[in-house]
């Protein structure tokens, strides 16, 4: 039981939900699967006065748009993504990223849009504060930070833990957001503010309607890895996602996208490392150089008892493997799906 009373609304359409959010104001929160919001409400990180539950709305099946882009309803459950033959064949990177989220039950409940809209996490924040920490921290509206006592006021270094977001960024995906005034299209990268206090860039009352992934080009390969202590049911130490597009000579790198998740307040692109790969032959030496650049520019935050040097070491290994896999897939040496 959640320790305070709140109201619950169950709109039948997304338009109705947007109307409710506009009418109820900032006290209302939308809830898709609830796997992030409800545990946060239990420890009083989130305290909405009304929950607008989207469980009555049936998501559309993933499909290909007229321009060849893949369109996935934001309310698609993560388990649907991993089970869907369509997604596994055409967007194997997304299926793999969805497969490593949480546990079997979490994937059956959680949705793709909800996964992107999850709150940032911190070992101290995600506990009942009245139990161990008497004064609220910055993120709870207080005046201290437990893991980083030297932090300036209102700097929160909680970490954004979505496993799916780095994969979508590496795939160059964008989001269709709706509110009462209409729809807008933003890239997945633009969803994030980069601040731990308010990690998402959505306007009040805005809802993610769909995720649009551009069709993969020729000579395209991907790599994805979520580092964890155990095999499942865990938030990541770090997530490495990369896509490589080779030039038509099938040798030189024409485009690279590297996204690192679970190390900062937002998923981060390693832009300098990407630029370093373009035009080169992505062999072991070039990949090693890109990895060295990436771990420096990403500059991981220590989180969940992992030190910065441990996360950097973990990333060094896994990002190298991820980039190698992406190159092998682009060359056709291992199967794409």
């Amino acid at each position: 039981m959640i320790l305070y009373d709140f109201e619950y609304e169950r709109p039948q359409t997304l338009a109705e939900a947007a109307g409710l959010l506009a009418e109820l104001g900032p006290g209302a929160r939308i809830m898709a699967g609830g796997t992030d919001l409800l545990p946060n409400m239990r420890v009083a990180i989130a305290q909405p006065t009304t929950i607008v539950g989207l469980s009555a709305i049936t998501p559309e099946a993933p499909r290909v748009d007229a321009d060849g882009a893949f369109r996935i309803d934001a309310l698609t459950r993560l388990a649907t993504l991993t089970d869907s033959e369509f997604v596994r064949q055409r967007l194997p990177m997304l299926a793999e990223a969805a497969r490593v989220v949480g546990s079997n039950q979490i994937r059956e409940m959680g949705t793709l849009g909800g996964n992107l809209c999850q709150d940032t996490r911190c070992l101290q924040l995600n506990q009942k504060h009245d139990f161990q920490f008497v004064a609220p921290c910055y993120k709870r509206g207080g005046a201290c930070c437990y893991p980083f006592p030297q932090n300036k006021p209102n700097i929160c270094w909680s970490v954004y833990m979505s496993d799916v977001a780095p994969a979508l960024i590496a795939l160059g995906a964008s989001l269709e957001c709706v509110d009462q005034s209409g729809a807008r299209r933003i890239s997945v990268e633009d969803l994030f503010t980069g601040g731990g206090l308010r990690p998402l860039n959505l306007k009040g009352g805005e809802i993610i309607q769909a995720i649009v992934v551009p069709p993969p080009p020729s000579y395209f390969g991907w790599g994805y890895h979520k580092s964890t202590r155990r095999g499942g049911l865990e938030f990541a130490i770090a997530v490495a996602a990369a896509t490589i597009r080779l030039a038509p000579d099938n040798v030189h790198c024409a485009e690279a996208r590297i996204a690192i998740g679970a190390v900062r307040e937002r998923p981060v692109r390693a832009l300098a490392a990407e630029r370093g790969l373009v035009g080169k032959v992505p062999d072991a030496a070039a990949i090693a150089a890109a990895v060295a650049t990436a771990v420096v520019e990403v500059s991981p935050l220590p989180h969940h008892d992992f030190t910065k040097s441990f996360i950097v070491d973990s990333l060094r290994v896994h990002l190298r493997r991820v980039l190698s896999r992406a190159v092998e897939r682009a060359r056709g040496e291992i199967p794409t799906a």
Partner: protein
Amino acid sequence: MADRNHNSKSMSRVVAIEVNGEHHEVTVKPRHMLVEVLREKIGLTGTKEGCEQGVCGACTVLLDGRPILACITLAVECDGKKIRTVEGLASGETLSAIQEAFLDQGAMQCGFCTSGMLMSATALLEKNPKPSLAEIKKALEGNLCRCTGYNGIVDAIRQASGEGVDPIFMR
């Protein structure tokens, strides 16, 4: 609790749910979770409440056939849905195949995780009657057992799927 200014009288509503084939109408507030309704209002205490935050899997039930965590599911969201709990597995005195396999393999010690394990296993076998070892482990990743009985549980699912694992008393 730091909650302030919350309306203390949020509306109770009547929710119709079908639990193990029986129709129930229960009065709940939005803040009530499915596991509380099952245990305290309907009286089916087989579903356990462990971590209360969606980690341990002890509260796993099947909602329209999908394994979900009843401790982070609002009861009001289940209006008109069909729920299966561990009490619904056996028919009368006859245990289901997976329950028999759990007994054969000694797949429990304290038993607190068992109802969640059984529901996860049931969902897996209904979706995939012949799961591989990797698929079994993936399906059970959201169910924690603190007595470390995982090997027996995996063996039980393999036995129920017809893998030919000898019951523990025959080894």
